[in-house]
């Protein structure tokens, strides 16, 4: 049983969802311990219940996004952030419906929207709802609104704290149910947990990072507008990780400023004296990597992620599908496998723009001598004398290369979102078991 719970993804998911439901419904369950308050009517009770559920869901968002390793280790950060997005929208709708039911049920309560005359507990609710609306709008349409990632992240935090803080103030201010002892204990606990998570993310974690600094050893240019950033731990052992995992990198500035970027570790797990990251120049932060001087201080928060072959000891071999910079975690996996003298077959299907752009092309050739590694390069712009694959990684191409016994391998995909979706669908159509397909999304937000 224990084994089942630890290893079966469906059992793990069911257990987590059970815990999630229980925590969110606990404010209502606790109320059932008390005798019901008289004469409030179905719609009022329903509205209050929706408000409680919405608020509890919002509090739990802090736990989902605090990069807690036990939560994250079950599914990976991208899946958790997707859950965070969907459940935030649900919480938002429940919180909006909560007053709407009141207004419809009892139009006099509309007076509570009169900000200047309403009691402060109602004002808290209005401001919390406004903050929540801004939070949702800026999160869904960040790119359309042209909001750069870093200011967005700061405002996202401010809106979230305002919405949840004032939501709790509203709930305590109304005090109708919260005057019940266990109920108020529970909500106080919710509030304290949210506060602790905030302190943990903003203060404790950055402080821990300052205790484990790294120094830039060198910055090496690679093919495809990519730079390898080599970091050496200073005064500590460095981090132990599983091949394919990633870390949040802070460069030059204090970790308390919370301006970190996620990057897959590209080096082997067997080589801990230095860590390597392959960073493609795409924007503000990444385009400045090439100018970083050796000796620059860096901090890492990690490792994170479940995109790793280390979890599949029993697999007969691996199929890796990379597009462009998506090669970095795969590079770590094949380098590690070579260092460990892994004798299983590795198939790498690697899409690049052109022959000249293939990041780590020469390194991969060297690895072929140390590992049972087959590489299929897929080029979008191929030279005239190119004999290999061209175009996109589609179902036909995959069918030509992946083994007939689909379930004998685990499949790792890391590429731009469009390619990942296409490859995932193609693998599904080729009868690859769904739990054998693993993906790392680089576009978290």
């Amino acid at each position: 049983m224990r084994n089942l719970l630890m290893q079966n993804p469906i059992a793990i998911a069911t257990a987590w969802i059970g815990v999630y439901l229980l925590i969110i419904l606990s404010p209502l369950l606790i109320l059932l311990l008390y005798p019901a308050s008289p004469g409030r009517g179905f719609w009022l009770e329903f509205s209050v219940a929706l408000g409680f559920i919405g608020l509890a869901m919002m509090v739990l968002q802090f736990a989902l996004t605090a990069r807690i390793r036990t939560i994250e280790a079950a599914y990976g950060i991208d899946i958790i952030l997707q859950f965070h997005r969907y459940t935030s929208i649900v919480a938002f709708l429940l919180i909006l419906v909560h007053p709407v039911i009141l207004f419809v049920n009892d139009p006099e309560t509309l007076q509570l929207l009169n900000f200047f005359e309403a009691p402060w507990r109602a004002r808290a609710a209005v401001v919390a709802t406004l903050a929540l609306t801004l939070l949702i709008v800026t999160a869904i349409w960040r790119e359309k609104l042209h909001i750069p990632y870093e200011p967005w992240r700061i405002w996202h935090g401010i809106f979230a704290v305002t919405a949840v803080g004032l939501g709790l103030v509203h709930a305590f201010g109304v005090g109708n149910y919260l005057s019940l002892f266990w109920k108020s204990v529970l909500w106080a606990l919710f509030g304290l947990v949210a506060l602790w998570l905030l302190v943990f993310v903003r203060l404790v974690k950055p402080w821990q990072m300052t205790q484990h600094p790294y120094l830039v050893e060198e910055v090496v240019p690679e093919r495809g507008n990519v730079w390898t950033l080599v970091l050496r731990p200073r005064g500590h052992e460095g981090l132990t990780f599983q091949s394919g995992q990633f870390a949040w990198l802070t460069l030059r500035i204090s970790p308390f400023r919370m301006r970190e970027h996620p990057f897959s570790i590209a080096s082997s797990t067997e080589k801990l004296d230095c860590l390597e990251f392959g960073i493609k120049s795409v924007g503000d932060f990444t385009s400045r990597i090439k100018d970083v001087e050796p000796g620059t201080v860096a901090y890492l928060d990690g490792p994170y992620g479940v995109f790793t072959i280390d979890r599949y000891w029993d697999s007969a071999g691996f199929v890796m599908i990379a597009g462009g910079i998506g090669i970095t975690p795969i590079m770590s996996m094949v380098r590690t496998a070579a260092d460990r003298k892994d004798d299983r077959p590795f198939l790498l299907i690697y899409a690049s723009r052109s022959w000249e752009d293939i990041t780590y092309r020469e390194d991969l050739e060297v690895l072929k001598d140390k590992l049972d590694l087959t590489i299929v390069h897929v080029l979008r712009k191929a030279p005239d004398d190119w004999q290999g694959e061209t175009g996109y990684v589609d179902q036909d191409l995959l069918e030509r290369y992946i083994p007939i016994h689909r379930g004998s391998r685990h499949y790792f995909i890391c590429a731009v979102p469009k390619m990942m979706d296409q490859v995932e669908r193609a693998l599904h159509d080729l009868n690859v078991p769904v739990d054998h397909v693993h993906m790392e999304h680089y576009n978290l937000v």
Partner: protein
Amino acid sequence: MRYSIMLQLVTTISVIFVAGAALFAWIQNRQIEPIQEMGINHEFDRNLLIY
């Protein structure tokens, strides 16, 4: 595809929440029926005081 599984999951969770809220409201309300004799205006005033 994993995201569509997630969407179905979140939809199920949301239905559970709404059903849970309705069940809660029903239970709370059902128990108090025998003593529910309040005048409508009185109830309005009380709700306004509460919110």
